[in-house]
C-alpha cells in the first residue's frame, strides 16, 4: 500500500513510557496535512500507540485509552514470590523470569483495549519489537495477537517478568533498540518518520532502584544514539527524526500529563513539517511527471 505521494512512509515509535503519547501529537499533524502512513513500528510503550494507530483509532480515542491503560496501578501489585526467588534463586529456582510486579492488570487492560485483534488484521501493517532474553537479539512480531506482542514489548526489566511468546522468553524491545528504524528499512520504507525519547537521568542514586534505573538509562541512551546513527547513515532516503523536548519531567506513569505530552509532540512535529511537506510534494511531482 502506497500513499498518494508515491513513497512508502513509515512511522516508528520508540520506547519512552508516557512520553510515547507524543506520537498522538504527531498523528494529529500528519492527519491534518493528509500525509498517509503505510506501516507502523512500535517498541515498548511505543507499541501501544503504534497498535492503536495501526488499528485505525483517532488520536483522541487513543489518548483516552492510554489514560485508562497506563496508570501507576499497573505496578502496585507486588509479586512476593518473584521477589523471594530473586533473593533465594538457588533455593527456590527463579526460572530466569525476574519481575517484581504482577502482570495480570496490564494484560486485562490490554485485552479490553485490543480484544483478540491480530497484528495481521490491523488497517495499517504493524510491527512490534521485543528482545530475546536468551541472546539479546531483536525480535520483530508481525503476526499473532496484538495483546501478546505488546505485553512482550513492555517487559520492563525487573518490573514485569519476561513474556513467553513463540517458544522464546521476550523482554522489553528497548533492550535491543529503543527506536527500531531498521524494521521500517527492512520493510522497504522510503520516508521514515521516527519519534524517539531519551531516558531521563536520575538526580540521585541513593537507592538500589535509582542506581539500577540510572544504569539502564545510560545504556538505553547510548544504544539509541548508536543505532540511530547507523540507521540514519545507511538509509537510502530520509529519516525524519522527531525528538520532543520536555520542559516538565515526565515519569514512567505520569499519565495525567498526557495532554501536555501530546502538545509537545505536536510542536516537535510542526518543526519537521516544512521539509516533510516539500519532500513529499516533490516526490508526488516526480511520480506524476
Amino acid at each position, binding site marked *: 500500500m502506497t500513499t498518494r505521494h508515491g513513497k512508502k512512509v513509515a512511522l516508528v515509535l520508540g520506547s519512552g513510557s508516557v512520553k510515547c503519547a507524543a506520537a498522538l501529537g504527531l498523528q494529529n499533524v500528519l492527519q491534518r496535512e493528509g500525509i498517509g502512513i503505510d506501516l507502523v513500528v512500535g517498541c515498548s510503550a511505543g507499541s501501544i500507540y503504534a497498535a492503536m494507530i495501526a488499528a485505525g483509532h483517532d488520536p483522541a480515542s487513543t489518548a483516552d485509552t492510554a489514560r485508562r491503560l497506563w496508570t501507576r496501578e499497573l505496578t502496585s501489585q507486588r509479586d512476593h514470590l518473584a521477589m523471594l526467588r530473586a533473593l533465594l534463586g538457588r533455593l527456590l529456582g527463579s526460572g530466569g523470569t525476574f519481575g517484581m510486579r504482577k502482570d495480570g492488570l496490564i494484560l486485562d487492560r490490554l485485552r479490553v483495549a485490543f480484544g483478540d485483534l491480530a497484528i495481521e488484521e490491523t488497517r495499517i501493517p504493524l510491527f512490534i519489537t521485543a528482545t530475546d532474553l536468551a541472546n539479546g537479539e531483536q525480535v520483530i512480531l508481525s503476526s499473532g495477537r496484538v495483546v501478546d506482542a505488546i505485553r512482550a514489548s513492555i517487559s520492563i526489566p525487573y518490573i514485569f517478568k519476561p513474556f513467553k511468546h513463540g517458544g522464546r522468553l521476550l523482554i522489553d524491545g528497548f533492550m535491543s533498540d529503543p527506536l527500531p528504524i531498521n524494521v521500517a528499512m527492512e520493510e522497504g520504507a522510503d520516508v521514515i518518520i521516527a519519534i524517539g525519547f531519551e531516558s531521563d537521568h536520575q538526580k540521585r542514586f541513593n537507592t538500589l532502584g535509582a542506581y539500577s534505573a540510572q544504569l539502564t538509562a545510560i545504556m538505553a541512551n547510548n544504544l539509541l*544514539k548508536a543505532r540511530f546513527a547507523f540507521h*540514519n547513515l545507511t538509509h537510502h*532516503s530520509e529519516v525524519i*527524526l522527531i*525528538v520532543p523536548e520536555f520542559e516538565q519531567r515526565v515519569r514512567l506513569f505520569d499519565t495525567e500529563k498526557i495532554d501536555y505530552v501530546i502538545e509537545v509532540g505536536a510542536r516537535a512535529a510542526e518543526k519537521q513539517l516544512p*521539509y516533510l511537506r*516539500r519532500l513529499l510534494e*516533490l516526490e508526488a511531482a516526480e511520480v506524476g511527471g
Partner: protein
Amino acid sequence: MEVSLTDVGDVTVTTVVGSIDGLTAGGLQDTLEARIHAGRNQLVVDFAAVDYTSSAGLRTLLAVMKETRRAGGDFRLAAVRPDVHRVLELSGFTSILKLFAGTDEAVASFQAGSGR
C-alpha cells in the same frame, strides 16, 4: 539553500543559509568537493544560518568530511544552532567532528596547527 565561499589563508569558509536536506545537499556536496579537488582541503562550514539538517544532509556532510581527511585536511563546523546540534549529537557527529562557537575560532584551530 544558499552557499558562499571565502578563503581565509589556507582555510575555506563556507557559509550555508537554509536547510541541508535531501533536496539541497547534492549542490552543497558538489561545491565542496570541487574545492577539495582544487587543493583546498581545510574546510569550515558556518552553520549559523543552517536551520535544518536531515539524514540525507548528514550523509553529505559525512562524505565531505571523509573526502577532506583523505586529502590530508579536515572539515569543521562553526556556530551550530541548538536544534541542529541536537541532531548532530544524536547521529554521532559531535563525536567525530570538531565544532566551534564561531568561524574565527574554527579557522584559528587550523592555523594553530591542529589541522591534521
